[in-house]
């Protein structure tokens, strides 16, 4: 797991503009990615050479039993972790083994996350939670000059997820479905090329889950976002254009 010495500037060049790729073009690709953990003298192989690609405007579901390596793969694709072997490409740029700062930079501009447990920051209201990725990605000066644009965009996203009237509320006052919609809006603020969802409907009732999935599928179609959904829910997985099945760290089917 050696860190690349690629600079942030090089990565920025590689990251290009947002959603400027054509539909069905590959935005994320893995090449024989392996991930193992060393526990004392024992080596535990979690992912055993995964090669896959995610295309713009396509929703892909990733299914498999608990412990099959789904979340580990999701974290690798999201550049939160580094592969033990193999490489991850974002727009054909090797990204998996970059250093922490470069991966953080790429992540903030290309990847959005939606988690099962929403992970909204409790101290911030709904609008502030949605604006956070913008504040992280931009420096102080850039944020000050572009703040109005981002607030406008956050308001649009709130309308899209039907929560405009909740902008000033704290997450604690929202229902599970509302929180997940806020998390979705947050993930979409910077118009990422890739949206990674980890059990996004895992804590929701079927009706709310269906509503969330409608939103995700609609956004993917409309904006050309490549979506990967890790799920145990057959209703969710079967709506996806592609289904990847992971068993014991190996990609079994891709249909």
């Amino acid at each position, binding site marked *: 797991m050696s860190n690349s010495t690629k600079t942030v500037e090089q990565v920025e060049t590689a990251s290009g503009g947002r959603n400027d790729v054509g539909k069905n073009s590959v935005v994320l690709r893995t090449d024989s990615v392996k991930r193992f953990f060393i526990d004392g003298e024992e080596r535990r192989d979690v992912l055993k050479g995964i090669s896959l690609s995610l295309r713009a405007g396509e929703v892909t579901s990733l299914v498999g039993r608990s412990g099959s390596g789904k*979340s*580990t793969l999701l*974290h690798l694709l*999201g550049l*939160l*972790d580094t592969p033990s072997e193999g490489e991850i490409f974002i727009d054909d740029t090797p990204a998996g083994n970059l250093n*922490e*700062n470069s991966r*953080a*930079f790429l*992540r*903030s*501009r290309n990847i959005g*996350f939606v*988690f099962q447990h929403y*992970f909204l*920051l*409790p*101290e*911030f209201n709904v609008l*502030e939670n949605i604006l*956070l*990725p913008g*504040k*992280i*990605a*931009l*420096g*102080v000066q850039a*944020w*000050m000059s572009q703040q109005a644009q981002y607030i406008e965009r956050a308001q649009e996203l709130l309308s899209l997820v039907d929560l405009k009237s909740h902008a000033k509320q704290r997450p604690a006052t929202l229902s599970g479905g509302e929180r997940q919609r806020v998390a979705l809006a*947050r993930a979409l603020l910077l118009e990422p090329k890739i949206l990674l969802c980890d059990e996004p409907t895992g804590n929701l009732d079927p009706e709310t889950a269906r509503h969330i999935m409608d939103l995700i599928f609609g956004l993917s179609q409309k904006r050309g976002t490549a979506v990967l959904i890790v799920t145990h829910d057959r209703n969710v997985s079967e709506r996806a254009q592609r289904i990847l099945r992971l068993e014991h760290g190996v990609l079994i089917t891709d249909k």
Partner: protein
Amino acid sequence: MYVFSVALRHLRTRSITWVAGALIALVVTLYLLIISVLEGSKEHWMDKLQSIMAHASVSVGELAGGIQRPEPWADELAKVDPGIRGVTIGLESPAMAIFDSARTVGTLRGIDLQRELKYGRLKEIMTPHDLTEFGFHEAGNLKLPGCIVGGAWRRSYNLKIGERVTFLFSDEEGEARSRAFYIIGFFEGKNPYLETAAYVDRQNLAELIGVKGQAKTLYLWLTEPNRPDLKELKEKVREKMVAIVHRDIPEYHHENAVIVDTWQDKDNKFYQAITTENMMMRIIMCVFLGLLAFVMYLIFGRLVAEKVRDVGVLRAMGATPAGIRSCFLVQALFIGGLGLLVGFVGSYVLISNLNGIVEFLAVTAHIDLFPGEAFGHERVMTRTLGFDIGIIAAATMISAFLGALIPALQASRMNPVECLRHE
């Protein structure tokens, strides 16, 4: 940008951070209050020590006849250093003072009133303030020379201007002599010991005593008595005086006959004790600040433990380890700065109203916070030094920073995947 948002928002919603801020404010207030009182007390004591006595005295051994040419030598010494405000001339003799109803021992001090008024502090402590000469005054059928008597005698013997006082003393040959004086004024020396004396005209006293020179001591008055290079100045003055004696009394070459004493030499132990006490208190208060750093460490350790998932989410959104570290450090510095500000305001309010508070406590709760006997003065004196404000400001910010540093480093080194999986 998010660093400030996250840091300040955590601050608003986590009451434990306010506890840290309140502790900082308390320590800052206590530091400034205690040190200001101690410094005020020190200044008052120094004022007492320096109220009558000059900041340095120069004497020449008796074998050389004392200060044989007082005025020119005084003028020459005044030019040794620009920090010397002026030089006065003194001639002292132990004496017994005889009043109408009592007698007591003390000191007769011969001075040049004009020089004393120009360079010394007599004008500040003398009543009436407008005296310019001792003169001779009608007392019955006698004409008596004027004298200015110490406040201790005035209070003890209920003396008034225009009364007579007779001094009994011995001349250079050891013969007893006496001389009556006319009281033209009084001086308040703040120090009772120094007040058991009377000022008279130096030349008049020199004739009475019959000294070879006209003075025994030259007194140096400095612009800044607490100057840090007092010892160096003392040496410069001594060298100059040795050179003067060598030039003007060539038959007398004994260097050790020239003695220069600064006010610190005379009261060095007392001065050092007060200075050490104040410095020790500063150190003790800084130890409290060190403990505060430990409290900050505990508070931020807990805060980081509470925020593991938030760290994971921020990292997922693109925050760098340095950004995460900064969130906690900015928070700590903000708490430190806020505590400092509140501490400054609190100490200012307390110090400004200290005497009122002390009186209120004495009247209502019979608590004597500052007993006059211990501090040597009735009112609480305070003096806040810029040095102390700087020290407390720097120490507070450093404590806050260091206290939060380890938890902040731990937060920045957390694996984002583990953070997101944290239960």
